[in-house]
Structures are given as structure tokens and as C-alpha cells.
């Protein structure tokens, strides 16, 4: 049910930065995903910690999550998603100009996963690097791809979000361990006709909220504090409030910037952090849940992989047609956020 009270921006709310796409347009030409086969259910978690299926389902909407076997690398997941995306886009790896990997769970400090994937795919020469914006990484990756294509510095860009977050969870603590899952999603971004593909963007960060979602030593960071096993921690209610707010504001911004009414959104693909966040924001935006891609019940929160995995599911189910207005929106630790309105090609 839509909320009838008009939304009001809070005092002290961070100013948002929005852009209308300029130059050569770009669009998503193919999406691929991969998630580990092993599923952990809420009932499995009941045996591992003080929690219940009901508690988890009511508060998060999550019923299962895909969890990698110990020793699985983020590279493995990312490479499988990348190959699937190249197939879906109908291009070969040697046509790539750029490979961007968003991840908060790299296998090591360096070299980048992007360069390792480049070697796996045999695509030497393309610019390749990892980027860290937590759950917003994939959106920042898409925005970077769009910018390079707009300025004709690249034609084919592979953007990947990949996570093995289970390495950073404490399965004796019900707070955050129940929320996260492992997985990877990738998209090939290519030039598009004028007026199609990415139409507008809203991107930003607010470092004042850096303590709201953390992994490892909060004061210095896990590496500096020689914290060998950083664990994800979250200020639940603060994040909930921020998330609902930023979803609503971003939707307003990208629609306004593109000159499209929010009623004309055909599909919203939100970052899958918590069903309650998505539901609360959707009601405020005025979108019925039939217009929202939701898979958090199966996947949990896969951070940078959640948007491409949800988008791929929607494409596979025939929920995205040429000409549809698709809203992609994410937020994450940092705090960070990013959204785009696309006219699907």
C-alpha cells in the first residue's frame, strides 16, 4: 500500500549530486551471474546460533543464502559471472576495453581481482581495476563505464560485483551473520542509441556515517590494526533509516533529472539489503511490489553482487522489455549510494 503522506527531506540531510547522461549513451548489453550451490536455510542457522526462522524472516525477508565452501575465492565467483555476461552480450573477452570489479571481500590486498579475471579470460590490454564502495560498488562501476563510453574512451566495459562475505561473518552472532550471502553478478556495458540506456545518475557518499557498517577494527581499519579476521558489524536501525531515506531521495533525483515521472518506472531493481527497507521505500516511492525485483528471500544480501543478480533474475523471467524504464539503486557502507534510470535497449 502506498504511503499518502508527502515525503519531507530531513534537516541536515546530505545534498545529492545528480547528472543527466551526456555524450555518447551507453546501455547494459548482457548480464551474467553465479552463486555457490550450497544453500544455508534459516533452519540451519537455528542450529548454529540463538535465532529462529521467524525472527529472521520477519525482520529481513531472508529464507536462504548461498554460501561458498571454505577456500572459495571471490575470483572464482567473479570469473563465472563474467563469462556468463560476455555470452549474454554476445561479445568475446578480447573485445573488452575495461574490466571493473566491485568487491568488499577481495581475496587479498593486491593484485586486483580485475587483473586476475583479465588473465582468466585472456583479455590482455584492457584497463582493469577493483573498486571498493561496499554494496554500492556495482553502481559506481556502471557509472564509471558509462562515463568512459560517453567520452569515447572505451566501447565495451565489463562491470562485476563479486563477494565471498561468508569469510567475514561470525556464525555465533545472530546480528549480521544471518543477513549476508555469497555471489557474483556481471554486466557488459556498450554504446547505445541516443535517448536509450542510462539516462540519469545520482551518486554520492557521506563519510560522516563511516561507522554505521564496518568490517574489523573500527578505529584504524583491519589491516592497520592487524585484525586477522574482520567481522561485519552494522548499526541496524541507523542503517535502516538511512537506507529508506536514500532510496526515496535517489528515486526522486534520477527520475526528476531524466524528466520521467516515478509512476513511469516499469521495474525497480534495488540493492537487496533487507526486504523491510525495500518495502518501506517502495511504498514511499509509490511503487507496487509487482514493479520491484526482489530475490533477498533466496540470496540474502550479497553486497556488490545483489543488483546484477536481481537484474538477471528479472531479465530471465521476462520482466524487462525494450523501452522499459528501469531504476537501479544501491547504498552501502561508507556511507555510499548510487542510482540510475535506464531506458532498456
Amino acid at each position, binding site marked *: *500500500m502506498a*504511503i*499518502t*503522506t*508527502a*515525503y*519531507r527531506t*530531513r*534537516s541536515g540531510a546530505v545534498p545529492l549530486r545528480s547528472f543527466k547522461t551526456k555524450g555518447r549513451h551507453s546501455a547494459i548489453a548482457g548480464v551474467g551471474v553465479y552463486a555457490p550451490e550450497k544453500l544455508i536455510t534459516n533452519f540451519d542457522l537455528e542450529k548454529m546460533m540463538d535465532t529462529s526462522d521467524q525472527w529472521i524472516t*520477519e*525482520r529481513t525477508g531472508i529464507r536462504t543464502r548461498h554460501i561458498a565452501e571454505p577456500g572459495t575465492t571471490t575470483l572464482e565467483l567473479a570469473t563465472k559471472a563474467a563469462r556468463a555476461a560476455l555470452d549474454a552480450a554476445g561479445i568475446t573477452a578480447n573485445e573488452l576495453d575495461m574490466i571493473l570489479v566491485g568487491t568488499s571481500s577481495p581475496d587479498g590486498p593486491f593484485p586486483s581481482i580485475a587483473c586476475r579475471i583479465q588473465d582468466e579470460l585472456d583479455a590482455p590490454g584492457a584497463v582493469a581495476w577493483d573498486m571498493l564502495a561496499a554494496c554500492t560498488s556495482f553502481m559506481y562501476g556502471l557509472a564509471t563505464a558509462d562515463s568512459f563510453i560517453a567520452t569515447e574512451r572505451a566501447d565495451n566495459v565489463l562491470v562485476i560485483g563479486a563477494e565471498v562475505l561468508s569469510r567475514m561473518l561470525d556464525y555465533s552472532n545472530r546480528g549480521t551473520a544471518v543477513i549476508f550471502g555469497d555471489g557474483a553478478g556481471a554486466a557488459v556495458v556498450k554504446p547505445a542509441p541516443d535517448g536509450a540506456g542510462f539516462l540519469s545518475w545520482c551518486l554520492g557518499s557521506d563519510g560522516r556515517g563511516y561507522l554505521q557498517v564496518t568490517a574489523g577494527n573500527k578505529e584504524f581499519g583491519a589491516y592497520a590494526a592487524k585484525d586477522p579476521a574482520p567481522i561485519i558489524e552494522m548499526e*541496524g*536501525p541507523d542503517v*535502516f*533509516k538511512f537506507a*529508506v*531515506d536514500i532510496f526515496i531521495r535517489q528515486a526522486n533525483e534520477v527520475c526528476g533529472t531524466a524528466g520521467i515521472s516515478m509512476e513511469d518506472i516499469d521495474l525497480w531493481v534495488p540493492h537487496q539489503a533487507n526486504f*523491510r527497507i525495500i518495502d*518501506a521505500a517502495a511504498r514511499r516511492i509509490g511503487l507496487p511490489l509487482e514493479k520491484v525485483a526482489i530475490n533477498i528471500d533466496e540470496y540474502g544480501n550479497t553486497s556488490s553482487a545483489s543488483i546484477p543478480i536481481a537484474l538477471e533474475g528479472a531479465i530471465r523471467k521476462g520482466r524487462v522489455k525494450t523501452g522499459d524504464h528501469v531504476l537501479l539503486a544501491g547504498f552501502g557502507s561508507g556511507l555510499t549510494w548510487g542510482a540510475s534510470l535506464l531506458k532498456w535497449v
Partner: protein
Amino acid sequence: MATPLDFKELQDLASEILGIEPDQVQLDKSFAKDLAADSLDLVELVAAVEDKYDVELSEEELEKMKVIGDLWKFLEQKTAERLEA
């Protein structure tokens, strides 16, 4: 915005957010025990109240909200401050 408060309005808003009947929203009803509202429901309700009544609740004020009456008293106080202003 300095208009008298209408409890019926708050009942309608809370019922919309919490998915309950407006009649269930009474001053002595506890969010957690009587209305089965968890912490996230409360955050959402407070956000809606902030929008509707053009007020803002601090973290400390939010923590003090146990029954509907607490929220009502907060709104009465804010309205009184505005009428004086």
C-alpha cells in the same frame, strides 16, 4: 502547521504503517507488546510522523517511545511550542 492535533490522524497513520486497524491504536498501547511493532516498524512509523507533522525525533527521543501515548505527548509538546512561537 500550528493547527490543533487530531488523534484520529495519528491512528490512521499508525494503522497504515503498522498494518493494523485504526481502533487498535490507543494511547496506552505498547508498540512492542500490543501492536507487535518491532524496532524497524517503529523507525518507519517515526519517519512517517516526522514527514506528516514536520518534526524530527532524536535518537534519544526515539528510544523513549514505548507506547502510542509517548508519541502523542511528543507531538502535543511540539505543537504547543509552535503555538507559543
